[in-house]
């Protein structure tokens, strides 16, 4: 399963915040969404929350233009979106990755944010392909044969601890948790014969 993205919305108005939340809920990739009402402690909050995407109202940074440069410098992977209340096409928001405007239709805003999201590289740990490695297939086979972690370790010359790690990754990749579920998977994929299953 792809990693979920964390968002941080910085906006004073409740109505606009709710609108932005509503838009963000459109994406499959959306995970946690945090809100801030002003730019006080913004840097500290970014360090703490570690969002993947920051959405901030242009008005909030007019007074502190150096703040956003600072954020850009410190958090290189963070995607920055500026929200503008009225059309300010002439304004220079070059430091941001994207500008969305109150006057734009939903379809355009969603499309723009989606393509920005697509640029975000998946985090290493979550970039698991759903295909099992040869080693993992071997572990699934042993599980389906009814072996314990200790026995599997002995058969494959690995520590029981490594077996547990394999099992966790297998469950994560396949979405199957129980021994009987893994047994079904093993039989369907010809890792074992049905007569061999316990």
């Amino acid at each position, binding site marked *: 399963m792809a990693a979920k993205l964390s968002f941080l919305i910085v906006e004073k108005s409740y109505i606009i915040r709710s609108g932005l939340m509503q838009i963000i809920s459109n994406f499959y990739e959306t995970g946690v969404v945090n809100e801030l009402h002003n730019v006080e402690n913004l840097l500290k909050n970014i360090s703490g929350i570690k969002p993947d995407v920051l959405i901030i109202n242009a008005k909030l940074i007019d007074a502190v233009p150096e703040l956003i440069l600072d954020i850009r410098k410190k958090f290189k992977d963070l995607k920055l979106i500026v929200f503008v209340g009225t059309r300010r096409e002439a304004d220079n928001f070059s430091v941001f990755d994207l500008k969305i405007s109150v006057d734009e239709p939903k379809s355009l805003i969603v499309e723009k944010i989606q393509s920005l999201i697509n640029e975000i590289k998946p985090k290493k740990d979550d970039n698991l392909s759903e295909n099992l490695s040869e080693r993992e297939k071997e572990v699934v086979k042993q599980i389906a044969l009814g072996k314990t972690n200790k026995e599997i370790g002995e058969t494959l010359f690995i520590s029981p601890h490594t077996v547990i790690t394999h099992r966790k990754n297998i469950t994560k990749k396949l*979405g*199957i948790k*129980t021994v*009987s*579920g893994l047994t*079904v*998977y093993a039989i*369907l*994929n010809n890792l074992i014969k049905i007569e061999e299953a316990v």
Partner: protein
Amino acid sequence: MLITKNIKPADVILQNYHLIPIISRFGIKFGFGDKNVEQICKQYGIHTDFFLEIVNAFNDKDYNPYEKLRNMSLSLTVSYLLKSHYYYNKVKLPFIENLIDSLEWEEEDNVKNKNVLKKFFSQYRKEVTEHTANEETEIYPYVLELEQNYNNTGKTASSLLEKLKTKSIKDYAETHDELNSSLLDLKNIIIKYLQPAKNQDVTEQILIEIFKLEKDLTDHTELENNVVIPVAERMETELKNRN
């Protein structure tokens, strides 16, 4: 929408068909015309307030029935849980099992696929049956015994006092395992890994039934965790203090 005793169940069901199995679980038969909740409950000897808490919880996921249920007799909740057990073991699980049995694949895969799924499901069915049987013979009678003695301000039965020395509802709460993992696995297997059956309509029915059963079991566990266990715990403490 809040369901009250003056509302007609016919109107409610027409708005939300998810209540259909709940109505049946209380033993209410369809064809009840324009009677309201209170009249129907009276006719069937159902505790109206208890009925309302259950149907409201099913009707609106944000409705929290637990506080009110904790203040009603545990025997009401237990008798509802027993009816749910019957529904799982005698109605839903056999129904899904029959559906699995009627799946068909191309000749060379038919036997293998069918056998592996049937075996998985019959194991699961056994798990559920054992789990519910344990609750019916051990947990629920104990909880009802607690309540009976709790309400009886006189002497606490010595047999119960003996049990209280070694037994606690907390042990049950700890071993109260999830029955849903296997269902989640089954959904993944059917959606992602099983070869498509010739009769896709049956696959579709099976999946829908599993989703419904999963939701029902989750509600069931919630009811045990939020009503039966805390109330029994309170009674255990009180009975120990009394004696």
